[in-house]
């Protein structure tokens, strides 16, 4: 059994240490957010946050995680109580098929937590690691911008 820290909770997982995190999230833990897109670290549909860094969960073996904190889109909020990033994506209707979106959100979340005042050019460059095939990019950018503002004003008010 391997112990993992997922969305703030300790989880015991019965899987080979070599198993990429993506399969453990979806299989053993039943979390739907991170998606299989390529398994090669090329598309970012599997993106989650590990200790503040956006990573490809499809190439991250669970043996490498140790006690590091793993966050998935499920950790950003719920359907009844969505977090700022999720609200932003809903408000901007930033999805067509939506398959790439959780990965986008985690990439954006890690970026904004690092630097809430990131420029549009920087956003485009950072998000460039994640692919969208439906062409939802413009809305994704708007949603990320909206989330950035929401996160900034939330900070300001505390």
């Amino acid at each position, binding site marked *: 059994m391997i112990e993992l820290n997922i969305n703030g909770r300790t989880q015991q997982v019965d899987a080979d240490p070599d198993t990429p995190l993506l399969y453990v999230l979806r299989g053993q833990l039943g979390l739907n957010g991170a998606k299989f897109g390529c398994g*090669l*670290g090329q598309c970012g549909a599997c993106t989650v946050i*590990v200790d503040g860094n956006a*990573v490809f969960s499809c*190439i991250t*073996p669970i*043996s*490498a995680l140790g006690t590091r904190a793993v966050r998935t889109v499920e950790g950003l909020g719920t359907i009844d109580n969505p977090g700022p990033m999720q609200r932003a994506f809903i408000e901007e209707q930033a999805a067509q098929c939506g398959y790439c979106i959780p990965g986008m959100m985690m990439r954006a979340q890690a970026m904004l937590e690092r630097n809430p005042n990131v420029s549009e050019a920087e956003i485009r460059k950072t998000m460039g690691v994640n692919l969208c095939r439906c062409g939802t990019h413009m809305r994704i950018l708007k949603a990320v911008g909206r989330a950035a503002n929401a996160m900034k004003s939330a900070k300001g008010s505390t």
Partner: protein
Amino acid sequence: MLVLLCAIAGAACSTRTVIDSGAPAATTAFPKDRIAKGATLAAIGDCASCHTAKDGKPYAGGFPVSTPFGTVYGTNLTPDPATGLGRWSEAEFRRALREGIGDHGEHLYPAFPYDHFTLLHDDDIGALYAFLMTRDPVRNEVPANTVIVPRAFVAVWKKLYFHPGEFRADPSRDPRLVRGEYLAESLGHCGACHTPRNKLGAEKKDEAYAGGEVGGWHAPALNAGSTSPARWTADAMTAYLSTGIADDHAIAAGPMAGVTRNLGHVPKDDVEAIAAYAVSLNSGGSGARAAPARRAAAGDRADSDVNGARIYAGACGDCHDRGRAADGGALPLQLAIAPTLPVPSNLIHIVRDGIVPQAGERSRWMPSFAGTLTDAEMTDLVTFLRANSGYPPWTGVPAAVREAKQARE
């Protein structure tokens, strides 16, 4: 000593003049084939890499070149009259390449490798001039150099290390090798990265192609000191230089990525000539040096080895154990050069940042493991891969891992 140097410098200064040869030729004066030839030569010279700032316009300058003496910024090569070459005549341009002298008669810092470009034939210089003068002029004031050495001292440096003069072909040699040598030594300026430098920043001619350092990357030895596990053939080298990939060796990364991208636009026979020459540098020895015997005894393994092996199995093995031919497969690492190099920097860069094609480019793809692995895991993995190469352990791996991380942030 200082007085003597100043005297020599002063003497050197007084022999240079400003060439006043009137206005440069209008762009319409350059025949199309001359310009096309110049484009090819500029690609071989990889001029764009040092003369284009990150996210800047091509050839408009502003790229910082770190030297032990400070930072030199690549100049604006576009024909902008105020900030670029717009007012340079062909004669001034030729003098810069051949003698390392600017349009105000000043010595140019040898970060600009005129010790290589001096070898260029006149009409190649003319073609380069035609090419540069027909680029789009871009107004760009390049930042001032921060070099601590005054230009006058460059005169001394030149006296010691610079031997201007055009390339002379050896008629007894295979013409293809001659062409390759000419291109590689002049425009290719391969030695500028692949040859170690002395304390005054000059290439050590007696250690030509024994390997060098550039921008945090190690430029591997191309001579008999090469540690490439598989022997480089001319075909493999041609493939590498023109496509950025040699199946049994490497994918171009770091500074070589730009070089190979440019060489992809160069006529095949020129690339083949350069490749033949590069491979010939290694013909003195027995080809790739045989790798020392691997460390076998399990009892010898340190904890980090076990950890490294485990990380390898989980993060790398799925792709790297299957070979390039398999779907999602990658180079088996016993063929990889990076673990065999004298320093860990290349391997660390590749694991951290991956090797990722440019927009719209078709190329192999190694993903980035920066967030996936902690610094400690990166250290253990790199140590494990080094141990498996059979070469003695690297020193200072944790520091190198930290440095690579800081360079990115």
